[in-house]
């Protein structure tokens, strides 16, 4: 708290320090020149005046009857600005304590500093100025007199009222000549980019600290590469040598080689040093005893050091926040008692646990901020990331280890404790405070209209009604979100063909890619099974550590032994197979093939995410087959013999039905062809006998999305997988490479398709070999275009679609929406993979996955 009265005077006038994020309250009688002052020193948009707000609500800036509503509006606007982290200047007389109290409350509510600037101008001057203004000319003199009286009375109390800075400008000249100097907050070190080594709770383990600093590359507190150490606090108490730790840290901070935030233990010791009465528990007694052996001078230095510690730091352009006990995003860079308290002690639920200790609120579970929060305070066995936060207190003093995080590398470096220096009061928790532990995601991360930021296609909007449908399917049918890190996008068909007798034909697909500037494409055979995404982990332990499922701490009523080793799910995220043991059997076969092919080591991973087709179609679509496809086959098969016999009878009698008979025979043949078409994709299965899987892309592995890996390399990996499958599960995907600029190559592609679909094949997908490709304007190119076979399309467009009059009408189809949808879903899918590979929090991955499902419910012609 500072009151400037005569200090900071420059040659021209006084310089008033004003914090960059604060609520500046101007105080002065009507006519004291507040608006002029505000205009001169602050941005126009930073200033909210009560007169302006009176105008807003009452069409008259001087209507005193509108004051109550006007101040409501003023507080509302100021609140919105402060919540968004913008400095705000309140231009009102503020001579009454009640008016100021409301503003101080507002500042506290948003955890910013309230700053008072008083314009103490003689009453006479105010009166003259008002008289010169037409709109205030009739303001009674006594009003200004009252203002001045109230102002005078207030002056002494301003600091006690809660203003953290009070600037009093006396007289017209001082107001005239003053300048405002914007100051950064103490916690704002966004300009420092490190690199940093953030070090967890030390608790007097001086020897371990020296070892760790050595391992990090520091020599006598200095890093040759200019790295900066950042201590998360709790330097003292419990351990063998708190003075030694303090000495090291203080010297590094002093020399600019380190930053330090306070822990609750320093805070308490600091109060002790100031002579306050504190309980000597939780290892404080040891520190006091050790410090008794130090010089009075050193103790004074320590006192000053602790006194000067700033509750938390915002570093590296806002990407990193360091504090002792964790901090929700709304407190980052804020300044208030409650921010400091949260930074030092964390939050509690109000309940107490079986040891009588307060239950800590799992703030990290709720954390959705973009800045990484690195903290300590609660000892955990392992430092693990949760929602972009990490706790580095690995219980060094309890015989655990001392841990450091390299930033921006995000690498952990640790040193084992030399011994148990202090017995813990209760066992270390098995997981970080609020570790996943079965806790689901929050509805607020997916609910309602949402805009998902993607790195490949910018912002993608999910409409509310689509989100609502996705929520129902996701909640009632989908696989656990932890095992559902991706959903495949829909795929657009080729432009409608003009080739006689065809609705789709590869010519258009090749032409489209040529137009997009894609020279090399790969044609991949379509298998006509059902889409299945497989997440294969090396073992249940990997699924547990990497995906957080099947944890020992949460025994479900299902009571399965080892927990799942992955998942196998459909295009909408439903478990492909209801029976978990069958899923595990398929995953086991896949896992064996991955191992035999040597892909675990080659891809440096212990899990794979695979995009596949599972056959036969009848395995999953049996309901649809029975109710729709086979039904049509049955009805047509039953009706035509009778109908044709009747027509033949009539014809034999000489009735003129020749045309009708020809037409019905053709329809009968079409219906039979339709029945043949769907039958090709059905066969009986028994357990896994008869079940086949054709993988065609490895989507992601540990630390890496493979979505941009060229398809020729992808297929080479897939081929090895198929080759090494001894179980007969895996099927190869046949392919042909085509040069879209070479007529011969294109014609070979067409022939290949004709041959394949002529034998009843479903068709093919044409993809740019480069996988993730942009056109000349930088827009994403369709990742694949499907060309479905002429016979297969009977299943989509009906048995008689090939009749010329039907084809003519069916060609009137619009692909625009489908293409746009395919690209948006593709971008969301890529985003999910990038987030997964980047180790981002589950809610971030799920947001993108949920988005794909929601878009899938958008109205688009389902036959495309």
């Amino acid at each position, binding site marked *: 708290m500072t009151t400037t009265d005569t200090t900071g005077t420059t040659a021209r006038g006084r310089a008033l320090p004003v914090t960059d994020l604060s609520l500046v309250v101007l105080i002065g009688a009507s006519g004291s020149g507040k608006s002029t002052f505000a205009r001169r020193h602050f941005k126009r948009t930073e200033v909210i005046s009560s007169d302006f707000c009176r105008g807003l609500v009452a069409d008259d800036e001087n209507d005193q009857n509108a004051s109550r509503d006007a101040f409501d509006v003023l507080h509302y606007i100021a609140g919105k600005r402060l919540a968004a982290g913008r400095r705000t200047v309140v231009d009102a007389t503020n001579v009454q304590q009640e008016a100021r109290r409301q503003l101080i409350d507002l500042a506290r509510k948003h955890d910013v500093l309230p700053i008072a600037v008083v314009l103490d101008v003689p009453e006479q001057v105010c009166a003259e100025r008002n008289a010169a203004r037409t709109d205030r000319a009739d303001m009674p003199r006594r009003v200004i007199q009252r203002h001045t009286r109230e102002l005078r009375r207030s002056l002494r109390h301003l600091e006690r009222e809660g203003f953290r800075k009070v600037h009093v400008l006396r007289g017209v000249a001082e107001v005239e000549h003053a300048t405002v100097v914007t100051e950064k907050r103490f916690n704002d070190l966004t300009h420092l980019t490190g690199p940093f080594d953030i070090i967890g709770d030390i608790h007097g383990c001086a020897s371990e600290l020296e070892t760790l600093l050595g391992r990090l590359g520091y020599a006598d507190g200095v890093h040759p590469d200019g790295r900066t150490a950042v201590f998360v606090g709790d330097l003292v108490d419990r351990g063998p040598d708190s003075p030694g730790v303090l000495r090291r840290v203080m010297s590094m901070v002093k020399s600019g080689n380190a930053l330090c935030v306070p822990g609750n233990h320093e805070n308490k010791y600091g109060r002790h040093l100031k002579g306050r009465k504190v309980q000597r528990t939780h290892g404080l007694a040891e520190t006091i005893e050790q410090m008794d052996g130090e010089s009075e001078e050193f103790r004074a230095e320590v006192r000053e050091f602790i006194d000067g510690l700033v509750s938390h730091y915002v570093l590296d352009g806002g990407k990193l926040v360091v504090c002792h006990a964790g901090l929700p995003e709304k407190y980052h860079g804020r300044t208030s008692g409650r921010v400091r308290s949260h930074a030092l002690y964390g939050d509690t639920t109000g309940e107490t646990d079986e040891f009588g200790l307060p239950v800590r609120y799992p703030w990290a579970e709720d954390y959705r901020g973009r800045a990484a929060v690195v903290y300590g305070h609660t000892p955990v066995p392992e430092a693990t990331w949760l929602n972009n936060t990490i706790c580095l207190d690995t219980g060094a003093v309890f015989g655990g280890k001392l841990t450091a995080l390299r930033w921006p590398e995000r690498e952990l470096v640790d040193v084992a404790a030399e011994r148990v220096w202090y017995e813990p009061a209760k066992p270390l928790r098995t997981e970080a405070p609020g570790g996943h532990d079965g*806790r689901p995601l929050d509805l607020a991360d997916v609910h309602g209209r949402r805009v998902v930021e993607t790195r490949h296609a910018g912002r993608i909007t999910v409409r509310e009604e689509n989100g609502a449908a996705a929520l129902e*399917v996701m909640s009632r049918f989908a696989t656990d979100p932890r095992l559902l890190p991706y959903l495949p996008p829909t795929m657009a068909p080729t432009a409608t063909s003009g080739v006689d007798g065809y609705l789709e034909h590869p010519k258009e697909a090749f032409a489209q890619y040529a137009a997009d500037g894609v020279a090399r494409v790969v044609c991949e055979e379509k298998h006509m099974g059902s889409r299945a995404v497989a997440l294969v982990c090396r073992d249940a332990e990997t699924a547990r550590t990497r995906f957080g499922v099947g944890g020992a701490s949460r025994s479900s009523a299902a009571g399965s032994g080892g927990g799942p080793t992955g998942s196998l799910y459909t295009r909408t995220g439903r478990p492909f197979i209801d029976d978990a043991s069958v899923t595990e059997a398929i995953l086991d076969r896949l896992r064996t093939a991955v191992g035999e092919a040597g892909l675990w080591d080659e891809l440096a991973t212990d899990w794979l995410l695979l995009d596949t087709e599972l056959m036969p179609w009848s395995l999953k679509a049996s309901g649809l087959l029975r109710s729709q496809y086979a039904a049509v086959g049955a009805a047509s098969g039953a009706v035509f013999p009778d109908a044709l016999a009747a027509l033949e009878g009539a014809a034999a009698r000489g009735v003129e039905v020749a045309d009708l008979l020809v037409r019905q025979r053709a329809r009968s043949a079409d219906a039979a062809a339709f029945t043949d078409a769907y039958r090709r994709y059905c066969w009986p299965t028994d357990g896994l006998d008869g079940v086949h899987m054709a993988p065609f892309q490895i989507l992601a592995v540990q630390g890496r999305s493979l979505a941009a890996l060229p398809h020729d390399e992808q297929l080479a990996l897939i081929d090895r997988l198929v080759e090494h499958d001894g179980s007969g599960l895996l099927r190869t995907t046949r392919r042909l490479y085509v040069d879209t600029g070479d007529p011969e190559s294109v014609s070979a592609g067409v022939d290949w398709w004709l041959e394949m679909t002529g034998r009843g094949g479903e068709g093919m997908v044409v993809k740019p070999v480069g996988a993730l490709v942009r056109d000349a304007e930088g827009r994403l190119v369709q990742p694949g275009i499907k060309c479905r076979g002429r016979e297969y399309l009977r299943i989509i*467009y009906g048995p008689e679609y090939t009749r010329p009059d039907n084809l003519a009408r069916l060609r009137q189809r619009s692909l625009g929406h489908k293409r746009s949808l395919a690209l948006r879903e593709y971008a969301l899918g890529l985003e999910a993979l990038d987030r997964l590979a980047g180790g981002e929090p589950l809610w971030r991955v799920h947001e993108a996955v949920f988005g794909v499902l929601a878009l899938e419910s958008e109205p688009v012609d389902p036959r495309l």
Partner: protein
Amino acid sequence: MFLTLTTTGTPDRPATDLGVLLHKHPDKAQAFTTSFGTAHVLYPEAEEQRCTAALLLEVDAVALVRRGKGKGRGGAPDAALAQYVNDRPYAASSLLAVALSNVFSSAMRGVCKARPERAAEPLPLRVRIPALPARGGPDLVRRLFEPLGWAVTAETVPLDTQFPEWGDSRYVRLELESASRTLAEALRHLYVLLPVLDDAKHYWVAPDEVDKLLRAGEGWLPGHPEQRLITSRYLSRRWSLTREAMERLELIRLAETDDSDVEEIDNAVEAEAEQEEKPTPLAVLRREAILTALRDGAAARVLDLGCGEGHLVRELLKEPRFTEIVGVDVSVRALTIASRRLGLDRMGERQAARVNLFQGSLAYTDKRLGGYDAAVLSEVIEHLDLPRLPALEYSVFGSARPRTVVVTTPNVEYNVRWDTLPAGHVRHRDHRFEWTREEFRTWADAVAERHRYTVEFRPVGPDDPEVGPPTQMAVFTLTTPTTSTPTPTASTAEKEAKAA
């Protein structure tokens, strides 16, 4: 799309009179345009002894799909009709019934100027329909036609002879024979009963349906033993079409994405037939038991998690002690129905202020659910896959954390006491599991321990000495109440002590 009518005759009453009665000459093939295709009438045989008229309807499937363009999903208002692959061009559906009435309208009215006496008297008739869609199968076909004096031969058509394991299709090859009906009667029977058997989903609704039904049913429908089924199926179309068009579109698309039946995922709202039996005594008993538990817990602000169509919300509203009632369901359709049934938009402001319905999901934590006195999970947990149950557990007991949680679920042991339930079947097709009393207690005890609740079990319905009650209920009470809920817990604890 095909049927034949055959009659037999003698030299003085030649069978070829059929042509006169139908107003269609046996030696000509005639075509009639209808809104969904062309209807042809022709005679494969026309002898004195025997004469057969055939009605063949050429349905334009492409036009059917494209007709409703712009309404929602780029097609007709009905899911199945929006598919190019649909059975309308082949099966004797409601479309055929419409064609029948268009083409033979005079005959259906019994009008025949040339032979009025023959139109008024019964004649030997055989009707053949090779592919009749019949929801309810041959059995229902018999129940519908036999009371009208027809001898019925109905064989089911297999779905696909190559895949016998798929079983039967919903089509029946039908042959009706009677000598006691007039031609007009026969036509009117068909006109009404074809769409009834088809179950009417694919029918164009006209505003005067009731009149049409009464006219066509004159003389036979009032006395028909299946009158209720006929009427409700015939007239239920209108509602179902509207509903499908308005409320199911997004879900339909998601089902299609997955090659699934819409019904497979859109089953949050119980089917009509099941509703007709409601309220079953058990559902009433369950609600009473829940209300008792809530009163015991002195709850005023209550969450009904998985409120469905709002049956419990309605009961809660009747008691002023429940000052705030929140119904949450993941199905938007269920909420729409609940809102309509509760009449929320017509309710007085004071009453309406007590109720809030919104979409939510127990697979996620939800801050809106925090701070309530009690939560009810009535017949909800069994609709979740077991591996997803921990998520529900956390969102209710760990996150929302009301003072009282009431959970009911079927007791699978009791299933042997349901006569209508085949052995080994669950009570609802969406039940992912049904627990024994032991299984339920094991789960509930573990939940209570993990989240610091106590739990008490109560039976709902007759407590069978051998297999227990049909519904089991667990009442959880928070042991370390948060500071915001001071007094009532003491009394709860006392009551529990007494109960124990």
